[in-house]
């Protein structure tokens, strides 16, 4: 992406930002995050279809924040994450510049987060066909079958927390899983503990997850934990009309409507 490299250099040279976050060639056929702090490094910037890591995960990291204002090469999911983070007061116009990459791979530089929000709102969050099929398949199973499915899927999880590290929304300084007074979730990896950990994570992401699949992509065991958040996304849509990250929006789970509908409370 020539445009991106050029713009990154300008931004660094003019000291408009201190760091540009983008992608570079990693080992093998993988890409990885690149933090450009001097203009020579900008030449390493690449962008192609392999660049699926959600770079928004870095913007709440202390080490990055301390560097000063940052620019982020942001694909649609990254932009959504940024807006969600902004609505949670984790990032503001003062500390981020968004270099948007459209789904057509065009570079757009946004003047402020409001413009990013406007851009993002043109696209609805949609679950891809393959995952939809998977969700349907699970839906059709009996309850014990589903139970067994998840116990089996989650059994190998050894709590490396790569999912948490990759998720831009998991920026909490203290995760409930690390909480020990009381110990909500057992420290070692156990069948039930794993399930509890992932249920808890899915609940915490309800109304916030923007379906970037970073958790799944990061999982060394390729456990389909993203199905949990996808399910929540669909439910949010079904029950509450869905949500879009918004700078000044009401958050799905911290608000309510007096006429929220359910059919199970007696």
């Amino acid at each position, binding site marked *: 992406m020539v445009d991106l490299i050029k713009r990154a250099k300008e931004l660094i040279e003019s000291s408009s930002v201190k760091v540009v976050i983008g992608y570079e060639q990693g080992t093998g056929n993988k890409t990885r995050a690149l933090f450009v702090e001097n203009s020579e490094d900008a030449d390493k910037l690449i962008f192609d279809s392999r660049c699926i890591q959600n770079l928004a995960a870095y913007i709440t990291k202390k080490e990055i924040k301390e560097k000063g204002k940052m620019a982020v090469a942001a694909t649609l999911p990254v932009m959504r994450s940024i807006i969600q983070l902004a609505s*949670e007061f984790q990032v503001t116009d003062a500390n981020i510049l968004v270099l948007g990459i459209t789904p057509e791979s065009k570079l757009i530089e946004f003047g402020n987060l409001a413009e990013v929000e406007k851009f993002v709102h043109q696209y609805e969050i949609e679950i891809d066909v393959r995952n939809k099929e998977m969700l349907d398949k699970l839906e059709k199973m009996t309850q014990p079958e589903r139970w067994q499915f998840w116990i089996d899927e989650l059994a190998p999880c050894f709590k490396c927390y790569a999912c948490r590290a990759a998720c831009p929304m998991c*920026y909490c*300084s*203290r995760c409930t899983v690390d909480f020990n*007074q*009381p110990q909500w979730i057992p420290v070692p990896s156990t069948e039930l503990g794993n399930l509890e950990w992932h249920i808890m994570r899915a609940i915490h992401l309800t109304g916030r997850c923007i379906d970037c699949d970073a958790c799944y992509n990061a999982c060394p065991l390729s456990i389909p934990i993203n199905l949990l958040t996808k399910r929540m996304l669909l439910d949010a849509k079904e029950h509450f009309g869905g949500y879009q990250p918004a700078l000044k929006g*009401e958050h799905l789970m911290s608000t309510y409507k007096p006429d929220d509908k359910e059919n199970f409370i007696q």
Partner: protein
Amino acid sequence: MSKIGVFVCHCGENISATVDCAKVAETAGNWDGVTFSVDYKYMCSDPGQSLIKNAITEKGLTGVVVASCSPRMHEPTFRKACAEAGLNPFMCEMANLREHCSWVHEKGEATTEKAIDLVRILVEKVKYNHELTSIKVPVTKTALVIGGGIAGIQASLDIANTGHKVILIEKDPSIGGHMSQLSETFPTLDCSQCILTPRMVEVAQHPNITLYTYAELESLEGFIGNFKAKIRKKSKSIDEKLCTGCAQCTTKCPVKKIPSEFNEGLGKRTAIYVPFPQAVPNKPVIDRKNCTYYIKGKCKVCEIVCPTGAIRFDQEDQIVEVEIGAIVIATGFTVKQPDFFPEYGYGKHADVITGLQFERLASASGPTLGEIRRPSDGKVPEKIVFLACAGSRDPAKGIPYCSKICCMYIAKHAMLYQHKVHGGKSYVFYMDIRAGGKQYEEFVRRAIEDDGVNYIRGRVSKIYEKNGKLIVSGVDTLLNAMPVEIEADMVVLATAGVANEGAEELAQKLHISYDPYKFFAEAHPKLKPVETNTAGIFLAGACQAPRDIPESVAMASGAAVKVAGLFSKDELTREPIIAVVNRQAPPVYSSCVGCFLCVSACPYQAIEKEEIKNRNGEVIKSVAKVNPGLCQGCGTCVAFCRTKSIDIQGYTHEQMYTEVMALLNEY
């Protein structure tokens, strides 16, 4: 190590009839941390309480579990007893062996086992109880009443008469509100102004009441007992101290054709004006939008004729800052203008008027001096039609709710018309007659039976003008929807009562909630009708929902009692069952990450942003902070916080977790 005492009560035989109390006490005595355990016939009796107190002092108990009746019954009793013995009252918990166990289960092993479980849950909980101190808040004993209608007047007088100071602010030049516009009042038909004006004068003369008319609330901060309000006194363009109210200026003012707000546009007023003759204060204000001097830069007739030199063209708005302990909101309501029904032709046909306009026509102080004459040509209408629900109960174009007061005032209007226009014919189109209230149904029946008002059940579809008559076409739904067409001389629309314009902004200034219709929300629909969710702020009258005069007055007195109760002590004591955001040593300061999602979850706007600054004053971190004055202790934020940074005293994470563990694991 905890030293817990367990006290099992027989409650006479209420508990012991089905629960083996001795066994419960004996079992509890074997648990870790329980140093004393006993059963007794009446734990709440004096000897029973002494038993607890003695055990506290003798055994040095650190926690107490009383296993008896519901804590909703005796928790205060036993906590007080503990406190008297020197134990922090919040170290005492109750297991509900009576309502939740002995009374609802048959005698048997299972029932005793359940009783043991219930005690164990609380024994384990108490191990994690912390000593808490009640929250004390000082109280500034001055009340602010917003709105000088009948509700505001009543509230002010009631509070002032308990000996406390009141500041009453009114946005218009005079107090009196809608009630001062009314002709007669239902169901007694006594003259509205005759009963209202003495109270208005009383307000003006009361030593405890400071009255600011032409004034609005600018901002409010603080919390119960400790509010700070800024009041904007809009410029009246006169020096009130010099003005004697002689009315020279108002008679001489050359701008005479401004539609009078007080007469609902049916009469005219001048640019410098007193809204109505009985106004309090009876001193004029200059309406700058219409005054020739302010528009063209010259005139000043009022200044020339004023004998005391009281006119002040350059007067500016003033901001007054006051400290207050409680607020009564009595801002009232307004009527929805019916021009959203083009099919009724309001605004197009001069003789289609609103109910409030009819009040002015029927009022002796009104533009026709109380004669019913139609606006277009001053003719006395021979046929008059009243339409109920012109906007109310109409989700499509109006409001879905019932405005409540219309059925009664329509009956009153029709009655007044029949009394004033002999031989006149009056019709009322209605859907239901809602006349619940003392003497109300009788009043409506009187209109129908004695005064011959013709009630037709059906909604009118259209009103149009033809040959000087208003054709009102509707149906009689009680006659298989038979068409009814009336050639009327005048039509009165019972327009919906709606929240004031700007109600939303005011609510936001006051941090109180409002319903979807922008009426202010009461704290509880049944049991806290005059409280808001913000402690120390109360509601009176139609700002909460459409209300008639008796209800408004009752609410005002209710709100006044709440204020007086609050002012009866120098300090406010509140249970410390509130949420707290954790604080840790630097550099962490708090595990809160400052996402502030809890802010919108809090029903009381009790969560604020706190900026933690370093020595140079730079913000290092923004974290949530609970205002103990506002928090009511529901814990909704607690279950919501992802980092579990908020906890609620008395129901902490550790306590609740422990209860679950204790319940299911046998020790």
